[in-house]
């Protein structure tokens, strides 16, 4: 096995090994037979590994955290979703400064889209907290399985062809320049189909708020495939946008009492430290292999959420 393959396997096995005791304890011991401190420690380890894997695979931490922790840990789904949003927010805030400084994320592209998505996220958060948990689990399962479909089928484009900017993106000056150091050239970009993009971002906001996930996977697809932003700009702007959109939804969860410190804080610290480590691992780990592991994990987590929603 190569060094890169070995690291991938270690990360995957680590996640399984740390999650398995949680499942066993939750299902067999009622979730509270173990000493209380085991749970935050386990949560920290799982989220630290999730932070590494998620960033390497190009997905937000919450899309893995909510179905995995919601399915394997004994916490109520309300608290898992509250922590999930805080995780997505933390990863975005940790990565945001560098993405903005280097020009990979674009503030002017993000701001109008984030405003629409924020309004959707607040609506989604209230809807998610008002609906029966089983319905939300079922919806989450379907959404996660949809994410797997998007990850398997989408053929993203590094530099989509945008013949000309639309009137709205032109008025909002949603364009920019960045330096691609791999290709050693200056990339000028613009976007089109902005009204459609805005409508889709309203829907993405609802999903993010309802399920407590960042929905970065959907942001990237809309920015890149619909609006025609270069892939790097799409990924970076999507990550940064989560810091705005998830702020709106997370306040709904805080105000409804759906944030429990013992679940949220170890998770936030774990995922932030994990995302710092992942940046250093980028050079030695095969992101393609990590992506495959994440797709399998999402498939299993999505199926588990779906079955839980059906009461199975």
């Amino acid at each position, binding site marked *: 096995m190569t060094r890169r393959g070995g690291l991938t396997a270690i990360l995957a096995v680590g996640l399984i090994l740390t999650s398995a005791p949680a499942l066993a304890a939750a299902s067999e011991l009622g*979730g*509270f037979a*173990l000493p*209380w*401190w085991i749970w*935050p420690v386990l949560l920290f380890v799982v989220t630290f590994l999730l932070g590494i894997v998620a960033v390497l695979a190009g997905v937000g931490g919450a899309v893995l955290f909510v179905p995995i922790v919601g399915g394997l840990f*004994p*916490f*109520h789904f*309300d*608290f898992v979703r509250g922590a999930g949003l*805080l995780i997505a*927010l933390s990863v975005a*805030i940790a990565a*945001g*400064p560098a*993405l*903005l400084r*280097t*020009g990979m994320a*674009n*503030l*002017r592209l993000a*701001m109008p889209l984030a*405003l629409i998505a*924020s*309004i959707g996220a*607040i609506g989604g958060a*209230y809807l998610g*907290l*008002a609906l029966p948990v089983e319905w939300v689990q079922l919806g989450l399962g379907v959404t996660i399985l949809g994410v797997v479909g998007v990850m398997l089928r989408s053929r993203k484009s590094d530099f989509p062809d945008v013949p000309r900017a639309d009137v709205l993106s032109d*008025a*909002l000056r949603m364009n*920019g320049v*960045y*330096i691609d150091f791999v290709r050693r050239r*200056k990339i000028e970009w613009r976007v089109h189909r902005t009204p459609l993009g805005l409508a889709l971002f309203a829907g993405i906001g609802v999903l993010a708020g309802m399920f407590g996930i960042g929905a970065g996977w959907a942001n990237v697809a809309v920015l890149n495939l619909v609006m025609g932003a270069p892939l790097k700009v799409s990924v970076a702007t999507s990550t940064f946008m989560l*810091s*705005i959109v998830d*702020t*709106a*939804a*997370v*306040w*709904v969860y*805080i*105000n*409804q*009492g*759906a*944030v*429990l*410190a*013992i*679940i*949220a*804080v170890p998770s*936030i*610290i774990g995922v*932030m430290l994990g995302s710092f480590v992942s940046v250093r691992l980028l050079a030695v780990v095969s992101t393609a292999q990590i992506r495959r592991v994440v797709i399998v994990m999402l498939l299993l987590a999505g199926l588990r959420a779906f079955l839980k929603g059906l009461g199975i």
Partner: protein
Amino acid sequence: MSGRKRFVSPEQLIYGVWLDYGMRACLGILVIALTLYMAGFPEPVVPLEEVPRRWSLSAEAYQDLIGIGTGWAWLKVAYRGDYLSYVGIALLSTLTIGCYLRILPLLLAMRDRIYASIVIGEVAVLVLAASGLLGGGH
């Protein structure tokens, strides 16, 4: 000015700097608050060994049981171990509002009315969400 920064707008650079400082401060507060909480100091509202019996309750049932109340009611007990972390969480969830307010004067000075309006709109939406005035939920 470096090659990269030449293509980055001044408001974007300032936004990034404020986000960076805010993120570091919040992470520090959360680490300290969690350490104190795990050490049982100051005394939490819900004893640590009791929490696992309650975290499988819905948010509504949990809040009914401990009787602190929702919204900003946690501020009344922010000095207790389990609610000390809420200070860090609330700050983390307020960073975006601070960054937006920081760039608003820049946009107004540039007479960029469209983006200044977007900033005001976003801040209004986030403050409304944070205020708890929207109600709803369970």
